[in-house]
């Protein structure tokens, strides 16, 4: 797998989402659709990676968690987007980050449905084009990080990029967050209620364990869910929101075999008709119930 091919996010109102994302520099490509997205619209970035908005009465955006989508943009375009967002009264947040490459520079806001968007200034392009350059990274949450690591690293074969929450350094920084000295991105820290009685403290700040895996130029973050959440039915392997990984036919076969050996449910490989923007897909879900898709590009 050499990168993120597409992201499917859920929105409450397709027209409103289209308008908002056009503002950021996404361009609609209505000719090509993405299979298994329900009533949806496909937008393209300059890199050819797609973002698909799937209409849902209750969009699963999880705004208070580590879940987010990050897109690459030139610095001058990001400044222009900042002005447009200010005009629409959308608040931009800058946080401290644990991952070294995002530490110094970040830019977050929410779309009208609560999907958290990050715009990453691309060092490769300072010239403005008015377009979103590509997908930089995405993040999901999982209720078992050991299982998730096994799944993403051992079964899917992705490379571990960075881990947070295993070290005293992380605790020391969590304390700074607790004292209000560091403004951390959602999902990276949490308040622990348990020690209320034991230590006569109201709450205890802790790092929320998470890790990042690498797919070529792109990154996927997996955060520990701090609350129990209803997962999709156990036998459902295709759904939204979803993250699509770009893969060759051989990689898809290898992953399908590995998952079959561990009796992980999947659907496919499925060949798509010519009207679809991708040639074939293998639909799976991770141990946290997040929908994933391996797809062969056209």
């Amino acid at each position: 797998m050499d990168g993120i091919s597409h992201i499917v996010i859920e929105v409450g109102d397709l027209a409103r989402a289209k308008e908002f994302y056009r503002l950021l520099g996404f361009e609609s490509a209505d000719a090509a659709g993405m299979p298994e997205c329900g009533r949806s619209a496909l937008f393209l970035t300059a890199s050819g990676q797609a973002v698909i908005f799937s209409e849902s009465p209750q969009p699963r955006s999880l705004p208070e968690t580590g879940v987010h989508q990050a897109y690459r943009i030139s610095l001058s375009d990001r400044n222009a987007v900042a002005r447009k967002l200010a005009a629409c009264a959308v608040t931009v947040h800058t946080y401290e980050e644990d991952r070294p490459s995002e530490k110094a520079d970040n830019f977050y806001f929410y779309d009208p449905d609560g999907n958290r968007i990050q715009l990453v200034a691309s060092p490769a392009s300072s010239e403005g084009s008015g377009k979103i350059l590509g997908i930089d990274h995405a993040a999901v949450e999982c209720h078992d990080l050991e299982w998730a690591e096994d799944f993403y690293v051992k079964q899917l074969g992705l490379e571990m990029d960075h881990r947070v929450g295993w070290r005293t350094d992380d605790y020391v920084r969590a304390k700074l967050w607790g004292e209000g000295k560091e403004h951390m991105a959602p999902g990276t820290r949490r308040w622990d209620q348990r020690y209320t009685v034991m230590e006569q403290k109201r709450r205890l700040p802790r790092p929320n364990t998470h890790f990042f895996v690498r797919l070529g130029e792109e990154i996927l973050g997996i955060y520990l869910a701090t609350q129990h959440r209803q997962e999709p039915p156990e036998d459902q392997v295709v759904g939204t929101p979803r993250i699509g990984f770009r893969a060759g036919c051989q990689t898809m076969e290898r992953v399908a075999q590995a998952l079959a050996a561990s009796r992980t449910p999947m659907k496919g490989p499925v060949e798509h008709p010519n009207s679809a923007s991708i040639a074939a897909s293998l639909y799976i879900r991770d141990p946290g119930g997040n929908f994933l898709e391996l797809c062969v590009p056209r």
Partner: protein
Amino acid sequence: MAELEAISHSAICVHDLREAEDFYCNVLGARQGTRVNFKTDDAVRGRSVHGSVILEDYLLALMVTRDFMPMPPAEQLRGAHGFRHAFRVRRARFDEITNELRRREIAFEGPVEHPEKSPFGASIYFKDPSGNFLEILWRRDEDVNYQKPYVTGVG
């Protein structure tokens, strides 16, 4: 008198859980036990980050400290920083183990020969990456049989 029955485990403080697990499992040959705070249930219940490693019949819980601990001087290899754990090996394997530590460039002091009348034969002294003092020794009474307990991990 409380009349305790046995030692169950020791909890030791570490600065980096992965580094500690790597040291105890891949250098000293422990088995990986359970880890805590990598599941949502642990986050909801509010638990510290810790793990466990099982060295033959002994469980060490590895607790990530919330603050940096004072460290013993780097050159000090023998001592008790709080306390020291000593692990027994058979005399026949003692040289093999000291050579393995040398090969991995883990500094140790010794082997220190103990007096003839002591049940201990010889010891080496060293530290884990978080500055916890450790000792490996062989015993003159190594042929005495003992019942190996069943150790699983921390819940």
